[in-house]
């Protein structure tokens, strides 16, 4: 039987329409959603990058490139590693190690001559973490790593690390020891109750598992660790007066935090040489361990805010930081109730360009008791209740936030809302001194003059020390007094 041409054309038209309906109506979107490994990239990649990640050998290529990146890393050629990281994640977005190592590399390894990291890269590291966790929602790792950058590297805005750690907890593969960290993040966000509850929850789970499998030593270890953490935390809750405050009995007894201690903060900045600052200040806390955060930044950069930048501002990975922005962060280590730090930014012009047209730069001083070491927190409390400063204590520097999971929030859907928390605001010691561009670069009127700015309460006589400081240890002072450096005001009984 010979089919007629008309019949054939009819069949042809029917098959064409049929395949088109199937492809456009059903298959195309389903495939993109479930089988395309470049899912979520199309919007953020250029066509050439999209092409690359569509080729069949991409996982293999990513492997080879990653080995190459390793050799660049060993050679110290960090800049070369950066595009390879991006290329590898495009080629194979399921390689968790590349995301995790890439985030760490971007956030920590771009440093200046004095080992200060370039914080302008942090938003890129976080964006990489966001992308990695979107691409790999089945594992806890990139949620944890992103939370860790918030917790450890940014060391501020702890509600962000809580959000990421909570998402990590939802994944069954999370290592037991890493689950504990959420309790610490809660404490740093002044959510003490939630921190305690988290410890209890973990303890109950671990104890139950241990009862079933007593021969697993790791479970025993985890149970012991949690027991110890709970013990310490409960003792702290009592000693720091937190429990009494919760019960409305705060005024009935004296706790470690009852009488706020005045830290007596003051600061001075001297521009020794172009882009070289001498930063000095006082902090009347004798025990060693206090670090005052010092930030030098553009005064008018819209991405910068008080002692921070818009860390979470990038949603798509852009590995180039804002080249003309200056943001330096360092720490003034307090010993003998003062800090004295020379900050040399002259050797790294790409990191500290001081290139913006604005005439002013800020030198900010920031102390958040929530990031303080535990022995300091024992006096200052979780939120600085035991700390005050008659000149620079601020409660408006950081707002209180928390992320609340929405009804659709789950392993594969992002539905979190940022809400203000109706709790006492963070008590932060903060001030900023302003320097002009000419002053920092020692140009114009400042070629021959040494620019110096200071807080009105700065007492220069406390910095006339010429010899190396000897640290006074308070517990030894009664039996063997340490030599007091010339010019230092001896005080007793007023230290935490």
């Amino acid at each position, binding site marked *: 039987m010979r089919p007629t041409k008309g019949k054939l054309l009819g069949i042809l038209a029917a098959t064409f329409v049929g395949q088109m309906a199937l492809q456009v109506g059903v298959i195309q979107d389903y495939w993109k959603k479930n089988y395309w490994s470049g899912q979520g990239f199309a*919007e953020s990649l250029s066509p050439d990058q*999209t092409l690359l990640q569509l080729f069949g*050998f991409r*996982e*293999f290529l990513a492997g080879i490139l990653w080995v190459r990146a390793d050799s660049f890393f060993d050679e110290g050629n960090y800049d070369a590693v950066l595009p390879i990281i991006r290329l590898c994640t495009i080629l194979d977005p399921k390689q968790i*190690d590349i995301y995790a190592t890439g985030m760490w590399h971007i956030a920590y390894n771009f440093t200046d001559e004095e080992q200060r990291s370039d914080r302008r890269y942090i938003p890129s590291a976080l964006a990489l973490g966001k992308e990695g966790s979107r691409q790999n929602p089945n594992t806890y790792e990139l949620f944890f790593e992103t939370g860790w950058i918030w917790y450890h590297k940014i060391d501020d805005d702890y509600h962000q690390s809580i959000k990421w750690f909570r998402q990590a907890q939802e994944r069954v593969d999370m290592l037991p020891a890493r689950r504990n960290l959420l309790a610490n993040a809660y404490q740093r966000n002044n959510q003490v109750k939630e921190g305690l509850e988290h410890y209890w929850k973990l303890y109950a789970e671990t104890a139950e598992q241990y009862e079933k499998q007593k021969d697993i030593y790791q479970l025993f270890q985890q149970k012991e660790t949690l027991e110890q953490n709970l013990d310490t935390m409960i003792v702290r809750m009592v000693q720091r007066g937190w429990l009494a405050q919760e019960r409305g009995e705060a005024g009935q007894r004296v706790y470690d935090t009852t009488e706020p201690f005045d830290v007596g903060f003051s600061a001075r900045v001297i521009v020794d040489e172009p882009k070289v600052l001498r930063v000095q200040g006082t902090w009347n806390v004798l025990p060693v361990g206090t670090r005052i955060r010092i930030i030098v930044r553009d005064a008018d950069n819209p991405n910068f805010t008080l002692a921070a930048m818009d860390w979470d501002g990038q949603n798509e990975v852009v590995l180039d930081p804002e080249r003309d922005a200056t943001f330096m962060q360092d720490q003034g280590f307090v010993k003998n109730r003062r800090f004295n730090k020379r900050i040399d930014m002259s050797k790294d012009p790409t990191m500290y360009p001081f290139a913006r047209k604005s005439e002013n730069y800020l030198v900010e001083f920031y102390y958040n008791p929530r990031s303080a070491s535990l022995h300091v927190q024992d006096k200052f409390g979780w939120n600085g209740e035991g700390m005050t400063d008659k000149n620079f204590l601020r409660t408006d520097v950081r707002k209180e936030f928390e992320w609340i999971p929405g009804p659709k929030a789950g392993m594969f859907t992002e539905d979190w809302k940022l809400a203000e928390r109706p709790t006492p605001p963070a008590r932060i010691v903060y001030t900023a001194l302003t320097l002009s561009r000419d002053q920092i670069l020692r140009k114009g009127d400042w070629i021959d003059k040494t620019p110096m700015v200071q807080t009105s309460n700065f007492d220069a006589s406390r910095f006339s020390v010429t010899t190396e400081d000897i640290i006074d240890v308070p517990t030894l002072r009664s039996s063997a007094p340490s030599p007091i450096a010339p010019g230092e005001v001896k005080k007793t009984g007023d230290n935490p």
Partner: protein
Amino acid sequence: MRPIMAIATTTVGEAIRRRVLLIILFIGVLLLSIIPSLSVLTARSEQSTMISTMYAVLRGTSALIAIILTIYMIPNEIERRTIYTILSKPVMRWQFLVGKFMGAVLALGLMIVLMSSVMVLLFYIFQQPSPERLLEVARQPFFYFLEMMLLAAVCIFFSTFTTPLVNFFLSIGIWGVGTVLSPLYSSIASNSGASPIMQSVAKFVTGAMPAFSNYDVKNPIINPGQVIENEQKYFIYIVLYAILYSAGLLVAGMVIFDKREV
């Protein structure tokens, strides 16, 4: 039906005897056997790299075989004038075309089964997976077979009116667009920021050109743990798509071949 089957079985025999195809097959098997030793490149994702690279070799080799096998089928018959002997018998031109296509698909199936067996065997030797995992890995080659069936239909369609050399580049191009570029076009088509002309072109490409990428369903296999809903339904759709598209191409080929002077 009998003439179609007779042409199909003869085509399979011819394909097996063709040295160039056997050489490509041999190279494919050789490449597959090298892959396990390359897995040292990646520590944690060793298994996923191994599987994806094996799949890439399998897919590439199969496509090359599909193209080389089919582009010569009709031109060779015409050049050697053997087509006169066939068409002088009670065989219609459309039966000849369908027979050739079915023969090519059968031959492709045999070669893909052979390569997949080697792949699965190597995977078993080097990774010692569970039987479920082994079955999962063995699933993808079936979809590559469907993809190659579609590619063979494209080649046969072009072979009704072009020379083998032109057909080779045309088919490679169409396959490239349908595999590598298909998701890209689909993204442009749904991107509201793209220019209207680009969007129209992209929509035409995604709707009219054969979407070979539909058969690349390896993502959950190389990255286990992904939750995919209604997968069976999707598989039915893509089988239907392959049948419809191949049928359409064969019908178009019949229309052209029927008018052709041989």
